[in-house]
C-alpha cells in the first residue's frame, strides 16, 4: 500500500472512532434476562470452585468500579486491606514474616467478613466520588434523585444501573428476579435510611461485589 493511502485510511479510522486514540464501543442496550427455573439447571459435576485471592479480588473490584487498586480498601485510612492487613485471610501468602509460603487453599472463618469490608469500602468510595461530581460520574450516574431519595425506584434508570453494575462485577446481564429484589431493597431503605439513594447505591454494589458468584471462579 502506498504511504499516502495508508495515512489517509488511518486518519479516516481515527475520525470514525470519534475520539483520537480512544475507541468507543457502541452502548449495549440494558438487558434483563428471564429468571431460570432452578429445577432446570444442571449441577456442576466437579463443583471445582476456587476463591479468587487477594490480588485478583482487589483488581476485580477496582476494575468493576473504575478505582485504583490501592483505593479499594484501607484500614484506618492507611493500611492496605488486601495486600497487608487481611492478605492471609483472603488466601494470600506472607513468606517474609511468618514464613507462610503457601496458601491454605480454603477460605477462613474471617474471610467473608473481610470480603464484606472490601466491598463496602470500594462501593462507598465509588458512590461518594460519583455523587460528589455527577458530571464526572463513572458508575452511579443517570439515576434521578430528589432530597436524597430515588425519584422512581421502579424506573428504567434504576434498572439500567443494576444492569450496568451486574455487567461490571459479574460480566453478565442480571436476571429479572435480581432486578426485582434490588428494587425492593430501594423501597426497604427508604423506610430506614436518612440518605436512601446513597444507601441503595452502596447496598446494591455491595450485594453484587460480595456475592459468592463474584468472589469465586
Amino acid at each position, binding site marked *: 500500500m502506498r504511504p499516502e493511502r495508508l495515512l489517509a485510511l488511518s486518519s479516516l479510522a481515527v475520525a470514525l472512532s470519534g475520539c483520537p486514540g480512544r475507541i468507543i464501543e457502541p452502548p449495549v442496550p440494558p438487558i434483563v434476562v428471564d429468571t431460570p427455573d432452578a429445577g432446570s439447571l444442571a*449441577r456442576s459435576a466437579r463443583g471445582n470452585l476456587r476463591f479468587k485471592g487477594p490480588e485478583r479480588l482487589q483488581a476485580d473490584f477496582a476494575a468493576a468500579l473504575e478505582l485504583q487498586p490501592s483505593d479499594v480498601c484501607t484500614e484506618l485510612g492507611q493500611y492496605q486491606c488486601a495486600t497487608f492487613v487481611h492478605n492471609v485471610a483472603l488466601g494470600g501468602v506472607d513468606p517474609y514474616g511468618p514464613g*507462610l509460603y503457601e496458601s491454605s487453599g480454603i477460605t477462613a472463618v474471617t474471610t467473608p467478613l473481610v470480603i*464484606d469490608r472490601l466491598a463496602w469500602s470500594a462501593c462507598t468510595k465509588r458512590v461518594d466520588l460519583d455523587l460528589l461530581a455527577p458530571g464526572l460520574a463513572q458508575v452511579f450516574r443517570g439515576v434521578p434523585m430528589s432530597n436524597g431519595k430515588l425519584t422512581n425506584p421502579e424506573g428504567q434508570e434504576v434498572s439500567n444501573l443494576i444492569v450496568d453494575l451486574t455487567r461490571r462485577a459479574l460480566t453478565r446481564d442480571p436476571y429479572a428476579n435480581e432486578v426485582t429484589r434490588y428494587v425492593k431493597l430501594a423501597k426497604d431503605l427508604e423506610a430506614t435510611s436518612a440518605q436512601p439513594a446513597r444507601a441503595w447505591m452502596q447496598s446494591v454494589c455491595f450485594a453484587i461485589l460480595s456475592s459468592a458468584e463474584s468472589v469465586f471462579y
Partner: protein
Amino acid sequence: MSLKRNGRLSRREMLKALSLAAAGSTTLSPFLAGCRQAQQTPEDVERGLRRDALDGKPRFLIVVAAAGGASIVDSFLAVRAGEAGLNAARLNTFPDAQVQAVANSPFRAVRVSNPRLGSIPVPVNTDQLAFVNKYKDDMLVATSVGTSVNHVIAQKRSITGNAAWKGRTLQECVALQWGQGFALPNVNMAVGGFGERGTDTSMPASVYAETVTSPSLWPLGLDGSRGVRGAPARAEVELARQARADLEASSVFGATFQDSDALKRWNAQRAEGARLEAQDLITRLNVIPDLPPRVPLSQYGLASSPDGARVRQAFPGFFDDPFQAQAALAFLLLKYRVSVAVTIGPDFNVTLGGANGLANPPLAFDFSHNDHRSGQAFMWARLLANLDQLITLLKAEPFDPATGESLWDRTLIYVATDFGRTRPRPDNAVEFGSGHDLNNGFLMLSPMVKGNTVLGGVEASSTLCYGFDPRTGTPQPGKLESNEPDIFSGVLTAMGADLSGSGLPDASAFKNG
C-alpha cells in the same frame, strides 16, 4: 410406641423416640461424667490412665513456638563445667558460677553477661533465676529426642508428636475437645511448621487454625462494616445482606455449584461471621489505642478494648514487636472465650525495640549458628519476660467465680521448639556457633502439669539429655530413643483430654495430681 408391619418404626414414632432420647441425655448428662469416672478400673488408675471429669468447662492451650531451636541445656538443665569432667572445655558447659541452683527444685537457671550478641553491638545481660523461682511449681521440663533437624519439619513434629495421633496438631486436638461453641477455637500466629495444619482432614472445619499474621490490626477484620468510613448503619447493612442472601438462595450460580465443598464452607463461614460480629470482637480484641494520626480509631467509629490499657502495660512494645502483640492478643482471645488454642512465637526477622534497641535478633534462637551462648541467653530472656507478663495477666483473670479458678488454672503453656543444638565447642570458647541436634527438652508451664519436675535428665559428661518412662516418670539414663509421641501425649494428658482410641502412650507422669 408401635412398629410398622415391616418391623420398623414409623416416621412419627421415630421422632418421638429421638425426642425421648434427647430429653434423657439432657437429664442424665451430669451423671455421665460420673459413669465415665466409674468405668476406670483400679488397674487403669494403677497404670495411671486417669481421665478427668467432663465438667463442661474449657481448658486452654497456648503454644509458644520457640523458633530456631531453644536449647534446654542453656536454661533449666544447664551443666556446670565442674560436673562435666575432662570434656567440659569442649562441650557446651558453663563456668560453675553461671549455673545457679534453684532452692528446692531440680531446675537450674543460667546467668550470662556478654558485651555483644555475635557481631551485633548489643550487650547481653540475662538471668533466668527470678523466673524459675517465681514459676517453678508450675514448671515441668521433659527431655526429648526428635527425628528431624530441618526447621520446618521439626517444628511441625513438635506440635504433632510426629503424627502421633492421625497427624493432628495439639492445637487441633484441644480445639476438638474443648472448642465447641467458641467462635475461633484455634488461632495460630506462629511461623513455619508451627503454623501448619495437621494432616487429619476428617475433623470439623472449625478446629483448623485461623492464621493471623498481623495481630495488632487483625481484629479490624472481625466485623464486616464497622470502621469502614461512610459505610451504612448496621440496619441498612443487614438489609443489603438479606437481599444478597435471598438472591443467592435461588441463584443460577448457587444451583450450579450447590455440591461444591468450597461453597458449602463459604455459606457456613458467613453464618460464623455473624457470631463474631455479635460478640463485638472488633472492639474487645483491639489492643491498639486511639492515637491519631497513626491510629485514628475514633475517627473511624472504633474503640480500643476495655482491657486495652492493662494489656498494653504488660506488652508495651505491642505495636512494633509482633511477639508482644501476639501475646496480648492471645490473652484477649482466651479472656473473651474466642479460642481454646492459641499459638504465638517470635519469628526469624529482626525486630527493633526494647531496652537495648534490639527486641529480636535475626533467626531468633537459630542465631546460635553465629553466637550460641549469647543468642540462647538473649532469646530465652525474651521468651521468659513475655511469658511472665502473659501468666500474670492470666492469673489475675477470674475464670469461674463459683470455684475461684483463674484463667491460669485452666491454661497450659507448651514451649515448643524445633530441636536442640549441637554440644561441641572449641576449647573453652565463650563465643561459638552451634548446629541443629535432635537431643533437647521441652518446657511446659501450668497448674495442670506436675510442677517442679524434670522428666529425664542430663548426662553431665556429654551434656546430652536422657529419657524417662512417660507413665511413671522414672528417669532412664542411657535412653536416647525418639519420644515425640510421649511429649504430645504428655501435653494432652496434663490437660485432661479424652484420649480414647488415640493409641497414644500413657503419659501420666506429666499430670499434676
